[in-house]
């Protein structure tokens, strides 16, 4: 088992090193960093000084190590476009994305489980059929079209909710939050639904499938035979046992929410990290792209490692075969 864990951690580190190499190559070979940082009026002495200062006169592996050292400390250089440290910009934008992701994650889990249980218990009812059909359409619609559709209904036609931005935000010492103002909360509704809808249908279908499986088991029949109420049988006995796979999938989907936030943030002009990344691609702002690449990789690799290690902890079969995996 220890063998497996060590190999898994080693793999993750290797992946991050490769991603780091890609990010570093972007820095080093896309355009000339000196060109990007110095203006038109520069002397040869300026160029030489900056070259030494940035360490560009050193051999490639040394530069790569220095880059990794900086990245590990959260130092990704200065944005070509905004002229400010990338870490600062990302720290400023992160609360917007994290709040959006948290709300849509909550929305997806809550409604996913509720609707999943509902459609499993009333599996032949007309309401269940409607929900299942709508969810099928929801899955096949591209995220950005869902966002536009919601804007059209709730902002253009009904004029109830804002179509862009975060509304008023309150600054809590470096963390800006939209939770504390009415306009901030209103602005969260449409983007969170857009972002969470896909994950919600996923969780809903999973819960439904698991529930249908569990409801056929003997212990459910026994629980009914003992005269327990339907509610106790459904929620205390059945739902509890469906939650293990749901938690795993939800964990793995966490990274997807952050990734798909890029699309939602662009549709709603939400001032988060995803919109920053898209703008960075449009203007080829390499330091921002490299930083985002590193951040998202650390997150994905971390989540996957955590889920894999959790499996080992939960599933004893993996433990005994661990050495040979």
């Amino acid at each position, binding site marked *: 088992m220890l063998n497996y864990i060590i190999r898994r951690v080693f*793999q993750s580190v290797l*992946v991050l090193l490769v991603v780091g190499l*890609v990010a570093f190559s*972007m820095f080093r*070979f*896309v*355009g000339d960093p000196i060109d990007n940082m110095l203006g038109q009026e520069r002397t040869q002495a300026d160029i030489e000084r900056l070259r030494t200062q940035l360490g560009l006169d050193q051999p490639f592996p040394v530069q790569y190590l220095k880059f990794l050292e900086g990245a590990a400390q959260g130092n990704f250089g200065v944005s070509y476009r905004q002229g400010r440290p990338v870490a600062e910009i990302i720290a400023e934008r992160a609360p917007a994305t994290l709040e959006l992701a948290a709300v849509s994650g909550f929305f997806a889990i809550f409604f996913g489980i509720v609707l999943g249980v509902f459609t499993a218990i009333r599996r032949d009812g007309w309401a269940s059929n409607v929900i299942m059909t709508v969810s099928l359409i929801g899955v*096949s*619609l*591209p*995220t*950005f*079209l869902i966002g*536009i559709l919601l*804007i*059209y209904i709730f*902002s*253009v036609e009904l004029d109830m909710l804002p*179509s862009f931005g975060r509304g008023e935000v309150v600054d809590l010492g470096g963390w800006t939050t939209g939770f504390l103002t009415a306009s901030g909360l209103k602005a969260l509704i449409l983007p969170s639904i857009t972002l969470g809808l896909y994950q919600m249908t996923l969780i809903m279908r999973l819960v439904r499938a698991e529930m249908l499986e569990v409801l056929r088991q003997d212990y459910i029949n026994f629980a009914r035979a003992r005269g327990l109420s339907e509610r106790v049988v459904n929620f205390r006995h059945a739902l509890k046992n469906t939650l293990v796979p749901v938690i795993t999938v939800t964990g793995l989907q966490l*990274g*997807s929410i952050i*990734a*798909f936030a*890029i*699309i939602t943030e*662009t*549709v709603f002009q939400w001032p988060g990290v995803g919109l920053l*990344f*898209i703008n*960075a*691609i*449009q203007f*080829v702002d*390499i330091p921002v*792209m490299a930083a985002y*690449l590193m951040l*998202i990789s650390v997150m*994905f*690799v971390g989540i*996957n490692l955590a889920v894999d290690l959790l499996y080992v902890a939960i599933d004893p079969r993996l433990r005994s075969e661990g050495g040979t995996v």
Partner: protein
Amino acid sequence: MTDAPVPRRRTLAPRLTAFWQSDLAWSFRRSPVAMVSLIVVSILTVSAVFAPLIAPHDPFNPATLNLMNGFTAPMTPNAFTGESFWLGTDDQGRDVFSTILYGMRISLFVGFSAVLFAMVLGITLGLVAGYVGGWTETIIMRVADVQLTFPAILVAMLIFGIAKGFTPVEYRDQMAIWVLILAIGLSDWVQFARVVRGATLVEKGKEYVQAAQLIGRSSPAIMLRHILPNVLSPVLVIATISLALAIIAEATLSFLGVGAPPTQPSLGTLIRIGQGFLFSGEWWILFFPACTLLALALSVNLLGDWLRDALNPKLR
């Protein structure tokens, strides 16, 4: 007309009959969804291919554009020029119907090319991984596993960004379509490689492969001539579903402004442009491209679903 022999027909007719009587065609005839999907896909593809012949206007020729025609509503004559357009015009007086036809061309071209690229890459790596084994296999499949943990659209965005960075500034707009194909293709090869590797591992142990090895055929020949034809049917299913995904991925990237450039707008770019007029009431600039994209993606997807069920021996 006459009894003059038509050489091609002699070989084609029995083949067509054989195809018509095959299991696949039988299952196709029994599935109305598949038939409708195929009709929709065919109509859209044909009209995209022949866009220059069908389109009433050339949206990219500034000489034929009249700014006075801007914002003409569908089916109503323009207040200034009296001209009428089926699906209306956008802010620059471009006929929306024509831009959709040309946009669909770009969307379908990128979709097909990206899937083709992903397919060739995935099949090659899958065959090699499955047939050669050892370290080669470990490396290929590890890379595939790692890539699979990232959502495909994110991978495509990252590759697009990196490739764009490496392209010289003056070529960026010209190269955007090819960079897009590269990005979507590279984000999608894993599915092909995994399936082909799995099927190759099964086929490798069969007697016909051993026979080919015994008579001394080279490894590439065995992989391409003997194993490949036997692993193709799952590849076909994945290719169809990938096509739907690639079309949506292309639309998403272009919508985000990191795909097809405004000079060569795809359906996604058109939707991006249309979103700007959502509040001012010119709904048709957004609505028709969005519907076209949906019809295209949905019918390809349904076709893929049908194909998967039809080729799955377990469901027969």
